[in-house]
């Protein structure tokens, strides 16, 4: 197990730290929000990220990627989390890039992976259908129609859905709504007839969309992986996303902690800095402990993907459950310790709390993952 970073990884982390602090500081997210930016992310910065190799970090060199692996991607995401950087890393790299890597045929890989690595294609995974993450319950239907399929159904909370150049749609080709089998992944052009995309403005100012599919025709060459056998791929892809998102949340949690600690050393009441009060000291020390555990879990989960361990589902659920809970706790505590200033839009802690909630709800919250873990462990 690699819970300690190699020199190469430390170098990558330093590059990422510098990039996000200088190029995508939190002011960037505020600007996107305040100008109601149509893309919802900085396209110029995304191009730079692909030049730095971040977009192709999980993609092999054959397709123009840097093949730094999951631990490398985790380090980048952690630094992105520190500045709440909005980028297609989750939608395009974690979710869709992984899906194509795992399930794509030679043509699909060549086409899509090289475009992702070059920063030329934004992709989105259309999976959710209700207010809670539930990959086992897919009602959207894809019906064979000659040499093609017709997709009908509605998807929600599609990350980067309104800016995607290409969609991966999770649809049912057989079985009942809650069957594990009978699920198929389709590559869909969002400009196809019958696709209606509505951007949803979220509390974290990041991208998401509702997408309606009305009898949308897709050729059978658009099937990603095997017909009816999409669930296995989907579970692997989701675990990668859960772990990657946990890495982003680790950055968010650490940044909130650091900011709060600095505030406690500066804000004075009763003639002394409030960080001298034991009521606050003990809460910070306890949070410090929780965050140290977060870091260990995230590192182990990332190396679990890298080493293709068979406990990836379990450690993914441990990581996502822990980071979902602790990011909620840390941002709530951070806000409280900032007092009235924490309630203002001017202070950043509120932005971190908003992002924490959305990240927690993505791909299963703590409740979902505890329940899943118990199922995986057979109790």
């Amino acid at each position, binding site marked *: *197990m690699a*819970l*300690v970073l190699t020199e190469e990884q430390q170098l990558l982390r330093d590059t990422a730290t510098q990039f996000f602090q200088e190029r995508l500081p939190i002011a960037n997210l505020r600007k996107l929000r305040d100008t109601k930016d149509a893309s919802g992310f900085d396209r110029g910065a995304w191009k730079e990220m692909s030049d730095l190799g971040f977009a192709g970090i999980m993609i092999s060199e054959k397709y123009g990627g840097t093949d730094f692996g999951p631990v490398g991607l985790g380090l980048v995401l952690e630094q992105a989390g520190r500045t709440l950087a909005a980028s297609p890393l989750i939608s395009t790299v974690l979710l869709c890039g992984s899906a194509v890597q795992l399930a794509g045929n030679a043509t699909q890989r060549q086409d899509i992976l090289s475009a992702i690595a070059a920063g030329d294609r934004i992709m989105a995974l259309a999976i959710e259908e209700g207010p809670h993450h539930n990959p086992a319950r897919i009602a959207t239907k894809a019906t064979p129609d000659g040499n093609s399929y017709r997709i009908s159904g509605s998807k929600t909370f599609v990350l980067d859905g309104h800016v995607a150049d290409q969609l991966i749609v999770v649809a049912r080709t057989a079985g009942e709504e809650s069957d594990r089998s009978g699920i198929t992944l389709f590559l869909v052009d969002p400009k196809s007839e019958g696709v209606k995309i509505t951007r949803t403005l979220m509390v974290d100012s990041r991208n998401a969309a509702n997408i309606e599919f009305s009898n949308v025709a897709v050729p059978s060459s658009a099937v990603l992986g095997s017909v009816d056998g999409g669930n296995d791929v989907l579970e692997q892809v989701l675990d990668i996303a859960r772990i990657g998102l946990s890495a982003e949340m680790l950055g968010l949690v650490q940044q909130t902690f650091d900011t709060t*600690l600095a505030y*406690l*050393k500066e804000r004075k009441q009763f003639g*002394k*800095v409030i*960080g*001298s009060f*034991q009521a606050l*000291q*003990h809460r*910070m*020390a*306890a949070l*410090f*402990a929780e965050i*140290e*555990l*977060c*870091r*260990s*879990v995230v*590192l*182990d989960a990332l190396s679990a993907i890298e080493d293709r361990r068979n406990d990836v589902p379990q450690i993914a659920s*441990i990581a996502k*459950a*822990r980071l979902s809970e602790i990011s909620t706790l840390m941002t709530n505590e951070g806000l409280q310790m900032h007092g009235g200033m924490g309630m203002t839009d001017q202070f950043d802690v509120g932005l971190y709390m908003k992002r924490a909630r959305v990240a927690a709800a993505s791909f299963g919250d703590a409740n979902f993952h*505890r*329940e899943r*873990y*118990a*199922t995986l*462990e*057979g*109790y």
Partner: protein
Amino acid sequence: MEALDKFRQEIKAWLEENCPPSMRTPMPEEETVWGGRNARFTNPDAKLWLDRMAARGWTAPTWPKEYGGGGLTRDENLVLQQELRRIKARPPLSSFGLWMLGPALLEFANEEQKKEHLPKIVRGEIRWCQGYSEPGAGSDLAGLQTKCEDKGDHYLVNGQKIWTSYADKADWIFCLVRTDPTTKHDGISFLLFDMMSPGVEARPITMISGASPFCETFFTDVKVPKKNLVGELNKGWTIAKRLLQHEREMISGMGLGGVGAGGGIGSLEQVAKDYFGETGGRIAGPSLRDHITRQKMDSKAFALTMQRSAEEAKAGQGPGAASSIFKYYGTELNKRRYELLLELMGTRALGWEGDGFDDGEINVTRSWLRSKGNSIEGGTSEVQLNVVSKRVLGLPD
């Protein structure tokens, strides 16, 4: 690497020949070997196992050979521990001398003291106890008042200690004494003496678990030879603190179900299925199931953190800030585990003694009560949080 492989083969062969089969079975608590002048071996194999391990210095594998230790490198010791775990060997010796005093003596004692005391610790000949807390000096340990006067050719000790673990069974004590009443931290010295000395009296204290592992220890005009002072006069606090670090490391392992973990009761989910019931292969109570999952996830996260800290230390990145939370988190985790076990087992974990309950159940009840002390002894959780706040986070007084 090759040398290590060869070493592993040697160890394997040696253990195969020398570890008696009965020493490869789970150890009931009453068979723990503490050594000492009055050592009792309920199983004769335990004596054999101790003597064989001690002869190689492997009760203290990394201590230098000249003091009876094994002289192993860190990596060699890792191999030894792996092989011992692999055959499920019992610890040959449990001892405060090994865990706490020895490392401090190696760092602070003079040559004569090391030669005198360390080999006897390795061989389990002398059982040590720790004279730290006093009735008026608990969390504020440096406020201790046990008086030690220089009487020319000897020291004279008067005072009282409390929570002295196994003082009634120990042969010697390492004791913090006040040698300068005019200052606080700079007036403490670190003294070793024989519990058989005239004027020493240990009275066991009955604890809420029903056991009496702790004593009140009284010193009335106890004469101690001057050569038994470790380090310089009035410089004992440095030694005391270092020794506390060793103690905390020992205690923090408890969160992983190590020492005193109510052994033999099985995994939490199995206990839940046995005592609460299952439907369709799952624990019947969703709320209990959720509590179990929280506990298992946090235990895993804690174990990974201890592992990460060890890897960081090995990679030369220093002990790391993470280690400062081990005592706090490990003991709180262990307490939570027992609270959960009680909830899973219902009234079966509420027996005190007699035939109405089996040994495992009584053990859970007693261990639950014992676990409450984990976050008090060796520095309370609150003191640990103070240490993190001030030393790690840099928050002011």
